[in-house]
């Protein structure tokens, strides 16, 4: 049935207001069947409200929600063909693992024997066959998460909604469970909508990332797309690892913009490919790993195709296989984050307060839109 419908979940002009505060502001979104979708954003951006509205646990202020072509805006959660996995899992502490998983089937009026059979089969799939009679308090974090997943999946929903499912786990288990979520999603071919504030999680898991900020959607795209081609300064800064620079366009030649930095007394010129009127202000981003530091300033042809940034090193941080350095231009106050491969750093160390020149290719600068 889902084959004929181009989406599993469609939100049209969806809004949520709490008294005077707008939590979600007229968002539109289509999620294709079988997509792992991450709603990504800082706390208070409206991602949880959006998820809870899709689940039916939050009243919609205006707009509509469709799940597999059915308008579900005003129908109760259990009739939406969705299942929700709660933050901290919300397992029933007084019920065994088996009864927790069988709960949804029990509510649908299934006989005890059959519902226990189905719950057992689901738990078996999750590798929890030995824990049927345990209580949630007797399980580890990862096991609890699997029980919650089994409980949500046992009713065979079309869409699984996950509210910060990994945040209660420690780092090691989190990575493990992250892989497991993705594997289960691909095995079942279901649509997952996963709310998270961790860009790392979203980049690792999502087919579709929806970056939200202050109740609206900043960007919708694949992980690669969101990372490499951030649409707005917010996305670029939220994804991290990105430098954001601003300037005024002084020349425009066949898509090649020449900018002059507007801050401070010192003037700094940059070039990038983009679309803007002469005289307008433009923001752009450069990935921290695209910024290079060459100890020997020699190749002039290289530097003619690249932008330069000279400044004083203010932070040197060891970060495993690379070294994170901040270079600040004392005249303008502008800082740039660069990743130096550890190998290079080992042979040519960079010192605090050293004045160095950084480069990046014109093609690596990505124009941002407000």
């Amino acid at each position: 049935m889902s084959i004929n419908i181009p989406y599993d979940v469609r939100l049209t002009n969806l809004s949520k207001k709490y008294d005077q505060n707008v939590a979600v502001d007229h968002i539109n979104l289509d999620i294709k069947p079988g997509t792992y979708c991450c709603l990504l954003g800082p706390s208070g951006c409206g991602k949880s409200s959006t998820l809870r509205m899709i689940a039916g646990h939050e009243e919609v202020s205006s707009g509509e929600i469709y799940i597999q072509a059915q308008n579900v805006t005003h129908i109760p959660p259990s009739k939406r063909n969705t299942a929700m996995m709660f933050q901290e899992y919300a397992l029933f502490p007084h019920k065994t693992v088996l009864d927790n998983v069988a709960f949804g089937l029990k509510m649908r009026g299934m006989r005890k024997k059959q519902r226990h059979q189905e719950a057992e089969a689901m738990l078996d799939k999750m590798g929890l066959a030995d824990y049927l009679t345990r209580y949630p308090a007797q399980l580890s974090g990862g096991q609890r998460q699997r029980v919650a997943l089994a409980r949500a999946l046992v009713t065979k929903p079309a869409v699984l909604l996950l509210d910060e499912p990994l945040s209660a786990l420690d780092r090691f288990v989190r990575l493990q469970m992250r892989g497991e979520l993705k594997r289960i999603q691909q095995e079942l071919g279901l649509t997952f909508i996963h709310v998270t504030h961790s860009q790392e999680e979203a980049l690792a898991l999502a087919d579709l990332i929806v970056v939200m900020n202050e109740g609206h959607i900043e960007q919708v795209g694949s992980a690669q797309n969101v990372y490499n081609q951030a649409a707005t300064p917010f996305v670029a800064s939220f994804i991290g690892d990105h430098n954001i620079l601003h300037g005024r366009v002084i020349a425009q030649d066949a898509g090649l913009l020449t900018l002059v930095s507007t801050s401070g007394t010192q003037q700094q010129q940059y070039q990038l490919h983009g679309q803007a009127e002469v005289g307008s202000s433009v923001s752009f981003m450069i990935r921290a790993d695209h910024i290079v530091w060459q100890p020997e300033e020699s190749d002039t042809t290289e530097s003619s195709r690249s932008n330069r940034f000279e400044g004083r090193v203010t932070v040197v941080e060891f970060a495993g296989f690379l070294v994170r350095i901040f270079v600040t231009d004392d005249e303008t106050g502008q800082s740039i984050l660069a990743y130096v491969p550890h190998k290079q750093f080992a042979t040519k160390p960079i010192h605090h307060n050293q004045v160095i020149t950084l480069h990046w290719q014109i093609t690596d600068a990505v124009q941002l839109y407000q």
Partner: protein
Amino acid sequence: MTPDQLDDHANAPSVTHTWRTRSLLHAARPYLLASPFVLILTLFLILPVMAIVVISFWRYSSFVMTPDFVWDNYKIVFSETYLRTFLNTFRYALIVWCLTLVIAFPISYFLAFEIRSNRMRTALFLLCTVPFLTSNLIRNIAWIPFLGRHGLLNSGLLAIGLITEPIEIFLYSDVSIILSMVHIYTLFMVAPIFNTMVRIDHNLIEAARDLGASQWRILREVIMPLSSTGVMIGTIFVVSMVLGDFATVSIMGGGQRASAGLAIRKMIASLQYPTAAAMAVVLLIVTLLFVSVLMSFVDVKKEL
């Protein structure tokens, strides 16, 4: 510090001495801290209870008690009259327990789940405790002008023509006793149930709803099992208080009704101390048995 200096210290007798005293004090600390309470409990609970047990085996004639070991007092306690009294007391306990539970559960539910703001919830709960600003006796007596033959209730009913003659059983009857007991003891049921209910994670309710549970099923499957410890603790409070109650039965029963507590009081008034002691021992054992059975279902530590 060099090894030589260390040796010097170890050999100095005074240093060793203070160190030893200190470690002794340290070990005794918890006992010392507990001792005032132990003393109070021993003086005012354990010794009196032991005295009661001892006296319950004594002989007595009209004005004299003689130390002895006889079962006569227990024979009186287990006579038909007093067994009836016990039975009546259990009946009060059962009825009051049922009514307080039926009243307290919805109140707690309302406070815990319907009231969204924490401040409002606390305010309403405090409101429930307002009657406790007056003493039990006064609250009992306050019912009399309301329930009496010419009381507010009867005159009201007469005025609107529902009855033609005052109804007698409103006061000095089981009705007034139970009414008053429910009035006094409901809060002891509300407080523990409310306490367990507010700690139920609201996500559990949402999860149940997400899985298709109706409001009734949520109550049955989630809220009731998770507040059962509160019900147990409330039951212990209410039942043990009703079993020992004599003031309410005395005032609201108008001397017409009997309970174990009241019987003990009457025996004391007529100087039958050993029988009163025997009755008290039996009541104590019954209450302890009941409490210990209920306690076996509750993890009290978890509730505190």
